[in-house]
């Protein structure tokens, strides 16, 4: 919820970029190649890992290591944990830890520290309480071995340990709230308190005696902006070395400047989540035909062309191309067919259409999007009313009061399909009315209890079932643009909008 449009994004660790820059940094750190300045619009609530969110990971990766490292292609490699293995029941995950790691104050990083961190995430009520909800017990076997006992298998556990829930802080700093502004991890950098102005600029300098391979930059700054226009200007003039652009107009400006290097990546998708598939608030939505009709009514091609300058790809599925569940055929499952939509509505018993009210936060639903959806739906007889909400009260009325049958959202498409399944399909976060059916139950059960990759067919089947049942109305995957001033090579992170801090290196 930090970036203007993203509600949840995971982020991750990635490839080891080994570039030993010898030479002393000294204090003259202006614009030499050994410093990196990243422009962003994402702000972390604090630098305490208990409050970390995926989209803010670079702030944390500078000072904390994760248990597991996530490579740019989505694969996992050792970091603080050198090995991880499941038992046959998939409810015991054994981690072997590195031996030579200490926190800044000399406290060793060991199994006890892992236990303290994971239990704190689970019990702390912060962002990761949900990801660690199935964690029953953390058993310390010896200093370098720890076993995570799970209530039920969790196919996304290793993903989480490579994400925010894998960030390991010094347990000695758990008392009080010092971690919020004074992070204490085992990572490659330290926060330079004197030059950091929280809310504006975060400056990180190399940590002495980092256990791992040094990252290529002596110094990393993350600069927060509240608009992409400033970011683009900064990249064009070299004050910012790298950034991610979501806005198509700013993307076009960046692309028109030959000094700026650009790299497109399709990440988040935009669409309607229909929460109320059992018809608690909007009885019409209980009929699959109605949900299908909405899907057929939406003119995805025109929307993509008009709203995002054609930058993206239309789709009817919520799972991203990196997942097992993804099926290219489902990108075109619902074509724009108002005729068919009217038939479906008539079949469902609503030949004259019906009225639908959705919440609208202007950060997500722009004027053109609001108008476009309204006219597409009106064309088949559905009278769409927008309730304008400010972002302060919106979450409250949508998630706490559960006052709306659906909402337009931008969602990430993480490379791990179980993450999407937990958030969007299983009863819970975005399925708060708890809709399910036998097919969904059977398939999710199989996927949850199968070893990694062995339930790929079931994942695809689940995806198809959800599309056929019209649980969601996805519009398109949006193309985001990685931009740099030409001095930095950025490797995009699979399934994530924000590249890991490890993915930056001086341009060759």
């Amino acid at each position, binding site marked *: 919820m930090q970036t203007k449009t993203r509600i949840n994004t995971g982020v991750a660790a990635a490839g080891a970029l080994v570039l030993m820059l010898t030479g002393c940094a000294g204090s003259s750190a202006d614009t030499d190649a050994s410093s990196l300045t990243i422009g962003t619009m994402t702000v972390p609530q604090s630098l305490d890992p208990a409050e970390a969110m995926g989209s803010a990971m670079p702030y944390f990766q500078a000072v904390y290591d994760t248990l597991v490292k996530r490579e740019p292609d989505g694969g996992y490699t050792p970091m603080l944990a050198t090995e991880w293995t499941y038992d046959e029941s998939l409810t015991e995950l054994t981690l072997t830890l590195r031996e030579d790691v200490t926190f800044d104050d000399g406290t060793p990083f060991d199994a006890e520290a892992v236990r303290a961190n994971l239990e704190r995430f689970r019990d702390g009520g912060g962002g990761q309480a949900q990801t660690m909800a199935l964690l029953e017990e953390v058993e310390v076997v010896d200093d370098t071995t720890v076993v995570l006992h799970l209530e039920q298998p969790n196919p996304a556990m290793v993903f989480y340990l490579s994400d925010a829930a894998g960030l390991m802080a010094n347990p000695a700093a758990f008392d009080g709230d010092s971690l919020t502004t004074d992070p204490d991890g085992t990572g490659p950098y330290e926060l330079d308190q004197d030059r950091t102005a929280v809310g504006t600029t975060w400056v990180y300098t190399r940590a002495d005696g980092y256990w791992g391979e040094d990252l290529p930059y002596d110094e990393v700054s993350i600069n927060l902006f509240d608009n992409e226009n400033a970011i683009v200007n*900064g990249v064009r003039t070299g004050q910012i070395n790298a950034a991610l652009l979501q806005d198509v107009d700013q993307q076009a400006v960046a692309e028109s400047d030959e000094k700026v290097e650009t790299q497109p990546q399709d990440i988040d998708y935009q669409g309607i989540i229909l929460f109320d598939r059992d018809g608690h608030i909007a009885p019409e939505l209980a009929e699959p035909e109605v949900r299908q009709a909405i899907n057929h009514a939406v003119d995805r091609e025109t929307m993509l062309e008009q709203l995002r300058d054609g930058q993206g790809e239309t789709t009817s599925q919520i799972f991203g191309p990196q997942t097992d569940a993804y099926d290219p055929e489902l990108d075109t499952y619902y074509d724009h067919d108002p005729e068919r939509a009217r038939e479906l509505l008539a079949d469902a018993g609503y030949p004259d259409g019906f009225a639908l009210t959705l919440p609208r936060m202007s950060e997500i639903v722009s004027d053109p999007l609001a108008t476009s959806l309204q006219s597409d739906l009106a064309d088949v007889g559905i009278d769409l009313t927008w309730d304008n909400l400010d972002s302060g009260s919106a979450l409250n009325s949508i998630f706490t009061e559960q006052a709306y049958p659906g909402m337009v959202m931008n969602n990430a498409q993480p490379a791990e399909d179980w993450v999407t399944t937990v958030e969007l399909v299983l009863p819970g976060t975005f399925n708060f009315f708890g809709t399910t059916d036998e097919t969904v139950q059977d398939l999710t059960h199989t996927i949850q209890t199968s070893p990694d990759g062995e339930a790929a067919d079931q994942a695809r089947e689940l995806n198809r079932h959800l599309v056929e049942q019209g649980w969601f109305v996805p519009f398109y995957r949006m193309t985001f643009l990685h931009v740099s001033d030409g001095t930095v090579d950025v490797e995009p992170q699979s399934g994530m909008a924000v590249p890991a801090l490890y993915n930056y290196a001086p341009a060759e």
Partner: protein
Amino acid sequence: MLSFILRRLGSGLLLLVVISALAYLLLSLPGTDVGRHVLGPAVPQQAVDAHNAALGLDRPVAVRYLDWLTSALQGDLGRSWYTSEDVSRALANRLPVTVSLMVGVTLVTAVVSFVLGVWAGVRRGAVDRAVQTVSVLGYALPGFLVTLVLVLVFAVRLGWFPAVGYTPLSQSPSGWLATVTLPILSLSVAGIAGVSQQVRSSVIEVMGRDYVRTLRSRGLPASRVVFRHVLRSAATPGLTVLGMQFVGLLGGAVIVEQIFGLPGIGAMTVQYTTRGDIPVIMGVVMVTVIGVILTNLLVDVLVGWLNPKARVS
């Protein structure tokens, strides 16, 4: 004079308390579920309730305000609900940025508009018409347009100045100058247009007065008449307008701060107000009110010093 200043400071303090109470009450009205907003949709309600309780949001507004006031009087403005940043520290970080702009803009505006205004008012004729035309143009041009053009030309195309960012004066004076020059220029345009018109018309008015005619008829050099006598009386309206503009910059610099990515008070106000981050907004409100009170006082003192007649009224 001293009792005048003390009286003004006393009423200023009262104003500060009244405004803080009003602001706190108004900010508490919308009823944002802060915990839900901070923790996100995924978190169970009890965690949200716990978070709200930890922030003290389960207590009545009056109690919360008194708590805030007590800590504020002891110099503790609390922490941001959303970024955990210490409010005093955040203000201390951002105030120099905005103050740099305000002082810079005021100096540039004062110098240029007094020069232009006096020149036009004394010379009249073609000079006057030229200055008037330029003023109207400067006033009519939308501020953000001027700013964007300045950025595109002098930063992006010519590369003379950085397009974004701020270098503190203490870190590098030349870097500081480079980062504030364009923002100051763009904010000065409208100000110069307004103040120079004020100065011009007062100069014309004073020039027509009897005592000026007498002075001139005695053969005093024109420059001496203008600088010793005319300017002294003519400066008052210009100074008043300048003071108002100075105060306006506290909030008026928002767009410029956004375009240049300057971490000032204006940009901060927008960011935190939309999220309903009361501790931070209260901090901004306090700083703004104090700024307004001090500026008005300074202008009054300055005007009184220049023009003894004003002291009597």
